[in-house]
């Protein structure tokens, strides 16, 4: 222990330059990274762009020492270094802020920061630590309240506290993994602006993992694009267009054009929610009196920062959570999420995380595709189940929805995320749909799958379905919706038709202003 301590390098005091040379990593037969080389200049903001599964996370996990790469090397300030574990990376001044918060919610920011150090004395002199820390925070371009428990901070403040923690731990190369996915647009702008300021002052180097072009254009100096584990291009952001970057990201594949929305006046009100309330897992109120209407042939989008009751609202509509009050009506009939009601009103659901919410992993693809109608003819004759009919029907859906599976009898858990999603889409949208409820339906999917699923949703709307679309991605809502509602603290706080929708106003409502 002591000998290894003596060899530990002294963390650098200024922004560092990072270089990755010929980095390769295989998982089983799949090359997650195939000889990636890239350079991040000291004091720059560098964006790492790529679709899901392009190898972005694998690359940074190799840099951070979570994975041992099969080939290649990491160089910091032109010297080859070993990062066999995250501790070594920290000693080199490399630190990472994860997509999901890692601070202990019940502890204060002060406690979190002090406990996060690699060497904490057995007895802590809190008075002295507090004084030291407030000096440190005062020297930073932004501050967070030190004595509040992390749980009571807003998402943007938590993100700042996470970044502050890395800076406090003397990090000089800050890796941010999709840092804005849990923030409002304003919070995102503020935080990215702050880290860019620190980078340009020469204090830190920033590597941002993202798939949002807007952030790349507004905040990054340079960009590297990965596709299928390979470096496929990059350079100064100023020299690149969105089109060029998009082409690098997705390659030469043809992407279905954005779904064409037919101009149509919304029909009769189809789905009505009145004064709906529901609790979360801990029994705290999560949905606080939601009223909304969705007419036939329109898409109503619900925006909001995650954790403001949207997922509970969807769960109530899906029958996965009992409401504590209020009423839901479909075409004027009371709706309690029973099977008969769902069948009668042709209700379809595209929940987030479909494997977790809408599938039985160990049952076959064919069986999973029959969840909605296994008890209806032709799948059932009286009480008996016809597995051959199920299989035959599934073959048709698999082909129509291009689900890649070895067989209709393969367990659905063996499929990739996108194909599970397609299988659920096939089940839910394969027949007639009058009411569609979708929650983050394209989360974690690649471009082609996203375009495909968006097309299906718009097509359902064009055919006259009432669509309720809940999403944390404002761009998705702006693209698809006819009307946008904003949910904050369990209530609908803002409503706008798409023609007058404005990113700033929506963002402000998302933050509760």
């Amino acid at each position, binding site marked *: 222990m002591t000998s290894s301590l003596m060899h530990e390098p002294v963390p650098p005091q200024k922004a560092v330059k990072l270089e990755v040379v010929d980095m390769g990593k295989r998982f089983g037969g799949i090359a997650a990274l195939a000889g990636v080389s890239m350079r991040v200049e000291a004091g720059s903001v560098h964006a790492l762009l790529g679709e899901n599964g392009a190898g972005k996370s694998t690359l940074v996990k190799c840099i951070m020492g979570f994975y041992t790469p099969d080939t290649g090397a990491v160089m910091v300030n032109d010297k080859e270094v070993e990062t066999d574990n995250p501790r070594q990376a920290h000693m080199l001044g490399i630190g990472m802020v994860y997509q999901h918060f890692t601070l202990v919610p019940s502890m204060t920011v002060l406690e979190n920061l002090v406990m996060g150090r690699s060497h904490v004395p057995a007895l802590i002199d809190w008075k002295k630590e507090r004084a030291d820390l407030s000096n440190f925070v005062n020297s930073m371009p932004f501050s967070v309240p030190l004595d509040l428990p992390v749980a009571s901070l807003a998402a943007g403040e938590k993100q700042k506290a996470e970044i502050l923690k890395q800076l406090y731990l003397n990090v000089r190369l800050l890796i941010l993994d999709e840092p804005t996915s849990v923030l409002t647009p304003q919070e995102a702008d503020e935080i990215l602006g702050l880290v860019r300021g620190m980078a340009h002052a020469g204090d830190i180097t920033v590597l941002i993992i993202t798939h949002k072009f807007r952030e790349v254009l507004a905040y990054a100096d340079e960009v590297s694009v990965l596709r299928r584990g390979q470096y496929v291009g990059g350079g100064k952001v100023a020299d690149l267009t969105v089109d060029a970057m998009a082409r690098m990201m997705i390659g030469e594949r043809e992407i279905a054009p954005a779904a064409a929305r037919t101009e149509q006046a919304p029909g009769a009100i189809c789905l009505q929610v009145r004064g709906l309330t529901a609790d979360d897992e801990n029994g705290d109120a999560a949905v606080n009196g939601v009223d909304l209407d969705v007419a036939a042939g329109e898409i109503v989008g619900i925006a909001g920062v995650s954790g403001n009751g949207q997922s509970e609202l969807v769960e109530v509509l899906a029958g996965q959570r009992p409401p504590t009050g209020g009423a839901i009506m479909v075409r004027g009939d009371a709706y309690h999420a029973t099977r*008969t009601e769902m069948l009668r009103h042709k209700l379809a659901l595209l929940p987030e995380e479909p494997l977790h919410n809408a*599938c*039985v992993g160990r049952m076959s693809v064919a069986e999973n595709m029959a969840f*909605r109608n296994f008890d209806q003819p032709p799948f059932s004759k009286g009480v008996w189940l016809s597995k051959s009919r199920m299989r035959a029907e599934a073959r048709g859906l698999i082909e129509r929805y291009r689900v890649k*599976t070895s067989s*209709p009898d393969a367990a659905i858990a063996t499929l990739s995320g996108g194909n599970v999603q397609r299988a659920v889409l096939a089940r839910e949208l394969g027949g007639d749909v009058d009411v569609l409820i979708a929650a983050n339906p394209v989360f974690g999917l690649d471009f082609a799958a996203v375009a495909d699923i968006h097309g299906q949703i718009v097509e359902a709307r064009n055919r006259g379905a009432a669509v309720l679309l809940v999403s944390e991605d404002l761009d998705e809502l702006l693209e698809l919706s006819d009307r946008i509602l904003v949910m904050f603290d369990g209530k609908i706080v803002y409503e706008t038709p798409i023609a007058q929708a404005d990113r700033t106003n929506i963002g402000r409502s998302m933050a509760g202003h």
Partner: protein
Amino acid sequence: MNSDLVLRFGAGAKVFVVSLFAIVLSLIVFGIFVVLSGVNPLDVYRLMYVGAFGSWFSWQNTLLRSAPLLLTALCTALPAQMGMVIIGGEGAFVLGGLAAAAAGLLLSDMSVPALIVQGAMAIAGMCAGGAVIASAGALRHLRGVNETISSLLLSYICIAVLNQMVEGPMRDPTSLNKPSTRALPDWAMLGNIPGMDIHVGLIFGLLFCLATYMLMFHTTFGFAARMVGGNVRAARMAGLPVGRLILIVTFLGGAAAGLGGMVEVAAVQGRANATIASGYGLTGILVAFLARQNPLIVIPVAILLGGIDASGGLLQRRLDMPDASVVVLQGIIFVILLASESVQEGINLPGWFRGIKPRSSAVAVAEGAE
């Protein structure tokens, strides 16, 4: 089509090979145990075979012992299809026996036909056993109580109720050494299968296994139940009545074990006393796990375990080993089986077992997507 068959068969083959491996390994470990107690393990294996399956006589003995195991195994296997681990079969078995004895004694006093007495006993036993396990299911569904713990504790309550009843209100004053209820009249007892020395309880067990297999794997009800078992969120999303399904399936499981208790009283003991809590419910757990919770596979596994049980007597007579030696073997099988289940994912069987990736259709589907 052919490749689908390989895929389906391959998964089953893997389970079969792993289970077989667990049993063989257990026999080897048991052999070491036997050597340590100074006996030649090869003699033990031979005698176990003779005692279990060597003659018609030993076959009958084996089948007699497997009859209650068929029923108690279902008490674990059926709720397992809904993702619940129930280990309270012993309690349902005991309470089923007690209720059957009560119903039988009541009705036989009123001199009604034997068939009606027996029918009432079966219904009473199934209802009592079903109620025990269904209450574990209800606690789980309504209050989130862990069903494994609650069914185990309910078991102790059932055994206590049995003891209380046979030593108190239902005690036959003439049973001195071993407190028991009065004996059922001979005419009310269950008979043997014609031409054999095996009571009709074996038929009950076989029918129950077949019927519940059909129910769970070939009806819409079973499909819905397995959806709940696989992912309750997906089941709710499909609008299924989750609570009702849980109650029905746990009731059925308990009813199977309760019927086992009824058979024990009406065909073997002739009365209810502490003897009916002799561990059939516990061995049933082992049978269910070895059968991978499949009601159809419960049948051969129950016969195998019944055979191991039956051979205990012969080992005692010929090799002077304690009767309970075979219980050691059962314990070893259970531990190795649970361990093998966790390593199963990592085991790669030869290609022809694994069900080689059906290339043709995979490629066809993939190409269709491009």
